[in-house]
Structures are given as C-alpha cells and as structure tokens.
C-alpha cells in the first residue's frame, strides 16, 4: 500500500510556475529601475531639444532665412536682427581649424601606425594625446590667449588655432583606428610592386582608410563647432560682419549664445535661442554626414 502511495505521489507533475517570492519581485524592481534610468536620459534630451526647436524656430521662422544673414544688433534690447556674422564666424573659424587639424592629425596618425608602431616616441605621443583630450577647454583658451592673442590681437585665426589644438588628439585617435583596419596584405602588395613606403601610404593605405578618416574628422568638426571657451579668449566679441580671417575681432554662434544667455533682455535671449537652433542644426548635419561615411565603410565590408 505504501508503494502505491509513493507511486501516486510521484505521478503528480511538479508546479513549475513562478513563486511569489521576494527574489522575483526584487529582480522586477531592478529591471524597472534600469528602465527608469533610460527615461531619465531621454527626459532631459527631449526637454533640451524641444526647447531649442520650439523657441529657436519661433525666432528663425519669424524671419527666414533672414535670421542667418542679418546683422547682430549692437543694442541688446532691440528685437529682430539675426546671427549672420556669427554664422560666418563659426564657418570661418571651424573651417580654418579643420584645414589645420585634419592634415596634421592624419599625418601624425600615419607616423604612429605606419612608422613607429611600438617605439617609445609613439607610445609617449599616444599617451600625451589622451592627456591632451582631457585638457579643459578654458585652459586651452587661456593658452591661446597667452601665445597668440597677446601678440597678434583678437582674430578668427586665433580661434582656429585653439580649436585645432582641441581637434588634434581626436583626429589622431580616430585616424589611427582606421589605419589599423586597413588589411596588411594591401601594403604588402604595393611594396612587392616596388613602391616606396611613403608612396604606399599615400596611394594605397590612405585611400583605403579614407571613409573612416573622413567620418572621424567630421565628428571632430562637430565637436569643435560647439566650443565656446577657447573662442572667448581668441576671437573676441565683435558683432559686425568680419570676413577677414586674420584681422580684427570676430564672433561665432557659440560665443553669441554664451553672451546673450545671461542678458536680461528677451530680444537678446531670443537671438540666443535662434543661434542655438542654428548651431544644433549645423552640428547635426555634420554628424549625419559622418554617419553616412561610416555606413559606406560598413557596406564595403
């Protein structure tokens, strides 16, 4: 009889449903917290972007496309006007910085990866490059003030120098990453045909790494376009159009935003929002272009 009872007990299938225990509740709570942190990230992003879109569009749409070319009023209280000089300033300063930083950065990365991969000099440069990318932008601004502005006065070019210093480590880092991805057999094929090292680099390696280099450089440009502190010390605070790179104080979108943000006049604040929208659009477009190039690499592979 006992055996039959045992058989009976053994036959009933076990209950595999989730037990209401503290353990499963705790796991659920933690997962909930993780989801909450996603919301915590999305919330400020949505808040900032929507504020920029809403308030910026109100200003820009009011006078489109005039906002991008109109003069900046010298009297903060005066409504209207635009950010024309600042747009030009940002384009000039960032453009010149790119022309300085990208060739130098690519060349430097070429040395680090193609010539002196493991030697002490390269390791020191890589290390210092990481250090340099951590330099606060205000320190960079003061540096440029001391070595350039004090001697040559405010100018767009001073700002370009400052931004180029900020961009250099970024371009070197991303270019080196791209050079690492170029398969070694491409270089070997070129050497086997009698090509010199420099020729190989210029005609085989760099073209192969080009989309990645462009993408990395565009990201550096996007970051540089938004920098403010270095420009405060190098470019000055002009409000007029100044198409000269080397002469006279200039302005930029980031500088204007900074200056107008603390103004007590709504008109000036409005212009700050408009400038912010412009800057965010420029940054977004440049980043988008960078993604296009990254996608092109992925497609090739």
């Amino acid at each position, binding site marked *: 009889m006992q055996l039959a009872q045992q*058989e009976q007990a*053994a*036959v*009933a*299938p*076990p*209950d*595999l*449903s*989730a*037990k209401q225990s503290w*353990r*499963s509740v705790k796991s659920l709570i933690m997962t909930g917290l993780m989801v909450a942190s996603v919301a915590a990230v999305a919330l400020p992003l949505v808040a900032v972007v929507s504020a920029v879109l809403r308030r910026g569009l109100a200003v820009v749409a009011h006078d489109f496309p005039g906002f991008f070319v109109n003069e900046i009023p010298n009297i903060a209280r005066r409504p209207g006007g635009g950010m024309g000089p600042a747009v030009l300033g940002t384009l000039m300063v960032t453009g010149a910085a790119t022309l300085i930083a990208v060739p130098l950065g690519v060349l430097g990365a070429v040395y680090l990866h193609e010539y002196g991969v493991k030697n002490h000099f390269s390791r020191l440069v890589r290390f210092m490059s990481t250090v340099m990318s951590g330099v606060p932008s205000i320190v960079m601004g003061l540096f440029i003030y001391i070595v350039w502005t004090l001697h040559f006065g405010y100018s767009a070019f001073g700002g370009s120098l400052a931004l180029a210093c900020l961009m250099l480590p970024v371009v070197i880092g991303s270019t080196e990453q791209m050079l690492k991805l170029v398969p070694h057999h491409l270089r070997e094929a070129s050497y086997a045909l009698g090509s010199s090292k420099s020729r190989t680099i210029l005609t085989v390696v760099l073209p192969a790494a080009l989309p990645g280099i462009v993408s990395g450089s565009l990201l550096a440009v996007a970051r540089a376009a938004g920098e403010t502190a270095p420009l405060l010390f190098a470019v000055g605070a002009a409000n007029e159009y100044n198409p000269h790179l080397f002469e006279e104080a200039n302005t930029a979108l980031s500088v204007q935003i900074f200056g107008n943000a603390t103004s007590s006049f709504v008109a000036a604040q409005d212009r700050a929002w408009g400038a912010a929208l412009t800057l965010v659009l420029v940054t977004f477009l440049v980043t988008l272009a960078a993604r296009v190039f990254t996608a092109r690499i992925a497609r090739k592979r």
Partner: protein
Amino acid sequence: MQLEERMEEPHARPPRGLSQVKPMESGPPVVSSRPESQVVFDLENVEVFYGAFRAVSRVNMKIFKNEITAFIGPSGCGKTTVLRSFNRMHDVTPGARVAGGLRYRGAEIYGPNVSATEVRRRIGMVFQKPNPFPKSIYDNVAFGPRMSGAKSKADLDVIVEKALRGAALWDEVKDRLKASALGMSGGQQQRLCIARTIAVGPEVVLMDEPCSALDPIATARIEELMRELKSRFTIVIVTHNMQQAARCSDRTAFFTTELDSKSDRRTGTLVEYDVTTKIFSNPGDERTENYITGRFG
C-alpha cells in the same frame, strides 16, 4: 562495515585507470523501458529553431530516473542544443525557439506560466569550461542555498560540506574553504561547479562535455564521481568521447546531422536511443555503427 565505509567515503578510492572500460558495477538492472513513474524527461517531437533555421528536428525519447544518459554524435549534430532545452538555457539566445512537447515529470517545461528559474532549480547544469564565481570555495557552494533563503552559518556549513563531499572535493579543500575558487586546478574547479550545482538540491544534473577541458586524470575522477552521483540524481551528459559514454552511461542516444530538404542546411536528428551495451555491441542503425566503429565522425 566495509560496504558502509565505502558508501561514506567514496573519494578514498584511488582513481581508475583508463584501460578499465567496464560497464556499470552497481545500480538497478537497466532494462529497455521502465514504468511511467520513473520517467524524468519525456520528449515528443521536440524541435529547436534559431530564427527560421531548424537546428534540431523531431526528437522523441524518454529519460529515466537515476540513470546516466549519454548524448553522442559528431559536432554540430544538436546534442548540446537538445541538452540546453531541458533547462531552458535557450531563453537567453534571442531568436531561439523550442517546439514540441518537452515534459519534466509530466509538467510542460515550455508551458505558459512556467518560470525558467523554477525549472533551473530542479534541473542543474555543469558546463564545458569550469565557471566558478570569483569568490571563495565556500561562497561558491553556498551561493545557491543562500539564494533559496538559507541564512544561518550552521545550516550553510552543513549544506556546503554535504555538497563538497558529494562532489568528492571535501578532503582536498576542507582546510581552505575561504580560499579563492580561481586558485584551484581545472579538475578541482569542475568538481566545485558540480558541488555548487548539487548544493541547490536539483533532481537532474545536466553535463555539457564536462571533461573536454580537463586532463585524463581529472576526467577519470569526474567519471567516477558521476557513478556515485547517479544514486541521488538523474544525469544527462553530452560527450564527444565515445569511450566515455560506453564506460559511464546506462543509456546512449546517438545524434547526427542530416541535410534539411527545406533549408539546405544540416539539421541535427536523433538516430538511435537505447541501452548503452546494445548501442555499442549491436546497434540497430547503420549510421550508429559507422560512428561507433570510427568509419566516420
């Protein structure tokens, strides 16, 4: 007295040499089929899909209590895939799906309202590469019981010692329970993983090629351990080592790959499942015979 002594301290016996490829020495007589109450797993047309790709096709088998069942076959034949479906490890692979009826003692493992953690509490698994936590030996074994709520040191001490004895590891580590588990040899780590698994108190222990990362001596110790554990647990072991299956198991299932007419890829399939002595002496299927005799695989 001698028998009792032997049952209390099984680890005192020296490890066997590999030349002794003898079938089981103890345990109930293995018959072709046993009563329903002794069925632990019942597979009915079980298939495993990764996305649209059918990795394993229609498996039908019954696994019995307190037996060692071995899954053998060439690589890619799906034996590990089937094993991992027993404890719902496929849940962590996105796109993996198990179809068909997979019953554990009558309860559908993939039924609605079934909690994977409940399943895994009853069906434990030991992996190919030993994976102890970066904690002390004691904390590794106590991990499962602590999770289930055991708190007092006295209770945990008893559980830990019983599990370590069960894994034939107690005498080697009883003086250094607080030492890091990562400082042990591979064979010891694997026995620790076994101790950790049995400390949870499961009914089934799944083993996925547990000896493939170990040297022959450690392998022999684990095989001996398996024979001792059989009386308390049901063991299913995947092995690529035929001789191990012949040595240790009561029943053997032979899997192979087939060209799937639908997808033009190789799908795993169960060829033959029977008592081990029959599989290795007089297999029913030609493919089994070819594999056993080394003509392919």
